[in-house]
């Protein structure tokens, strides 16, 4: 087998942060190399360097034996590198065909030949068995479909080396399995594949070789046969990690959160939560499993009163939450760990200590009348930074300077350090490293054991399966089934998530 890609001694730093330090790797024809590492381990930086989106400080990248000019995307494409990005590189308002041909359009005298482009698109999707509608507009497509377009875009350029940056983060289990199958087929055709992920299960399932990065350094390469999930996790984090969440039997009590006939519309004014009813008891974690975009976001925002309800009621401890009044929801006892922590969870320019009192800065003991009690804010900040293991030199640093995992810990610390009645956690471990995930999971279980009703929304089925006591499956704005976690089965839930009757 010929060597396709040779990375030799690549280093890259952003300011004082070292993203890559002296990394050397190879990928051969027809080989699937999984690049494994926590968030911030430098995986994305490394593959962006290969694709010419980032200029390495030192080191060389060879493709097919030729040294690549650093930071030249067009040259990387020309020599057969294709990339499927973590954030899809698709123009949302354009059609599938237009996205496929962008940058290399079939044309006559500068005029795009859209008919021929469509034919090409169809031929391509047939050749690789990736079915798409060439006329569909990207923003109307489900995520899995958009990803197909992204892969087709790379295949159209006749790729020899395909790079995928966390491709499964947004997929259902079924879509993930399909994708892994597609990758195996491509490898059989001789395409070299560089596959970034932090999901151990996928690595074990599909990789020929595994390279593990930690803190910008290559910790070693191994194969699925020589390794195991727990060994890989240890390589990634640098210490032993408990992959299984350990928790005691739930002791559910009275209903704390009850949702009755809730209807909510999304940003496009389409009804996305349809007559949904749900009850969460004190002392249990109810997990909502579903493919993203099936109404979870609107459901969470409606419970927290951040989004207008078309009809229906949200009742916390017997008290109805008024419409569009997040403050009232908070005072009624709803803790909210939002999906988008940068947008709804933190004021990134404020200090960590201020962020930790963001929802109670005007209440005792943090204020006396109109005057803030900064001493209390500081004490609270310091104690929570320690208790919640927020890795920061002190509590007065701006929250924006923290890493993703630590930002999330700030939000979790604030929301879980108050009187706990109802906890709404939306994607609480998204973009968070393995070590912090373990910590956040334990905090949620502690909240449950302290008698809170926890509603957990996550696109990661594994997270739901390991944390939840009951699992509700949401599809197209409706709860289609509720399981006790003991009787829950991965495949059945996956089918329900995809909208298929089980």
């Amino acid at each position, binding site marked *: 087998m010929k060597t396709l890609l040779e990375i030799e001694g690549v280093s890259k730093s952003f300011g004082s942060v070292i993203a890559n330090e002296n990394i050397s790797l190879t990928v051969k024809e027809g080989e699937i190399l999984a690049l494994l590492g926590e968030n911030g381990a430098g995986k994305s930086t490394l593959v962006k360097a290969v*694709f010419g989106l980032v200029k390495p400080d030192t080191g060389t990248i060879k493709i097919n034996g030729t040294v690549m000019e650093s930071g030249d995307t067009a040259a990387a494409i020309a020599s057969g590198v294709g990339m499927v990005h973590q954030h899809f590189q698709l123009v949302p308002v354009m059609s599938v065909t237009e996205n496929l041909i*962008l940058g290399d359009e079939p044309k006559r005298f500068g005029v795009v030949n859209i008919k021929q482009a469509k034919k090409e698109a169809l031929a391509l999707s047939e050749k690789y068995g990736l079915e798409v509608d060439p006329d569909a507009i990207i923003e109307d497509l489900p995520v899995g479909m958009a990803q197909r377009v992204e892969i087709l875009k790379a295949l159209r350029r006749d790729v020899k080396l395909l790079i995928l940056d966390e491709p499964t983060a947004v997929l259902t289990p079924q879509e993930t399995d399909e994708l892994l199958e597609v990758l195996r087929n491509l490898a059989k055709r001789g395409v070299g594949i560089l596959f970034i992920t932090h999901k151990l299960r996928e690595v074990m399932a599909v990789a020929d070789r595994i390279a593990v990065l930690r803190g910008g350094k290559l910790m070693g390469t191994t194969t699925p046969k020589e390794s195991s999930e727990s060994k890989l996790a240890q390589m990634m984090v640098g210490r032993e990690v408990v992959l299984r969440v350990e928790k005691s039997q739930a002791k559910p009590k009275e209903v704390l959160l009850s949702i009755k006939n809730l209807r909510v519309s999304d940003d496009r004014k389409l009804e996305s939560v349809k007559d949904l009813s749900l009850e969460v008891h004190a002392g249990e974690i109810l997990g909502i499993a579903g493919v993203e975009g099936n109404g979870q976001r609107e459901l969470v925002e409606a419970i927290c009163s951040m989004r207008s309800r078309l009809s229906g009621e949200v009742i916390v401890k017997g008290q109805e939450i008024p419409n569009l009044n997040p403050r009232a929801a908070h005072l009624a006892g709803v803790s909210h760990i939002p999906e988008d922590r940068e947008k709804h969870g933190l004021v990134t320019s404020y200090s960590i200590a201020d962020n930790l009192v963001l929802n109670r800065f005007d209440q005792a003991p943090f204020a006396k009348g109109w005057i803030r009690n900064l001493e209390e804010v500081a004490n609270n900040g310091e104690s929570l930074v320690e208790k919640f293991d927020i890795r920061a030199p002190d509590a007065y640093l701006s929250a924006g300077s923290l890493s993703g995992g630590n930002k999330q810990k700030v939000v979790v610390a604030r929301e879980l350090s108050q009187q706990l009645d109802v906890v709404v956690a939306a994607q609480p471990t998204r973009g968070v490293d393995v070590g912090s995930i373990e910590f956040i999971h334990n905090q949620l279980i502690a909240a449950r054991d302290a008698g809170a009703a926890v509603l957990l929304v996550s696109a990661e089925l594994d997270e739901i399966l390991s944390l939840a006591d009951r699992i509700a499956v949401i599809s197209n704005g409706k709860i289609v089934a509720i399981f006790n976690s003991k009787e829950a089965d991965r495949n059945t839930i996956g089918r329900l998530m995809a909208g298929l009757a089980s």
Partner: protein
Amino acid sequence: MKLRTSHYLIFAFLAAFTYFYSKDGLVATSVLYTAIQFALPLALAAMVGVMCERTGVVNIGIEGTMLISAFTAFFAGAILKNTVQGMLVGVFTGAMMGLLLALMAVNWKMDQIIAGVILNILAAGITSFYYRQNYSIPSTLDPIDLPVVGAWPILGPVLSFHGPITYFGIFFILALWFALYKTSWGLRSRAVGEHPSSADTAGVSVIRLRYLNVTAAGAVGGLAGAYLALEAVGIFERGFTAGKGFTALAIMIFGRWNPLGALAAALFFGLTQAVTNQLMIDEVVEIPPQFINMLPYILTIVVLAISAGKVRPPAAEGIPYEKEKS
């Protein structure tokens, strides 16, 4: 629904026109002729906005671009005693203003609103400081008597006998529409304005395309300025453009960043102004002229209020592109 509204508008227009034409044919056609003259600089200026914003650069310096280009076009024309050369100087000046905006907005990643304000202040300052009285150009650009079309009934006197910049301008707007939606330049430009990192990862240089389009748009703004000084009026005064560059932004939004839409919106603005002018001349209505002069600005506010929240600007406009962040 949208279609129906525009159908009603066209119907109302035709009915009103038939009524006025039956009363006085000469006046009715001359109002339409004037409407085109009022509309053209607005339409061209709106193209500046379309070309910039479609590639993701906000240009609020259209006013300044037009003002300084009208200034250089007029004085170059007067000093060289050649109107056509004056026009070319105006176009060149506009291109330079575009280049300056590209330098600030694309290279230095400045706030694009501030960059645009700089263009406007620069133009206002230079044109009033160097303004001199008692200059004149040899003649305005000669109107062209269109063959065949000129002889048509009703439409002939409306469409014929405009100046060369008017005809070129309309041709340019049609060509721009075609280029934007049918050529690879257009596909790439729109991609850069909507989602620049997709274009970049597909091997399209975001920086180069933004430079090219913003500079070319500046040249179009220069042409619009030259039109005012050399074709429409034949003089230059301080503050000559009177906010047309800002009205053009409203027209661009009203036309949904589409060249043909903006052309239609500009014609609507032009027609409104031509009709009120005629009403004043006829003394049908007794409104103080100050109020009539307010009309374009009031219409701008109304149009923006109607369009607000309904139209969707290019997603990446106003955001400098940073490659390493992607």
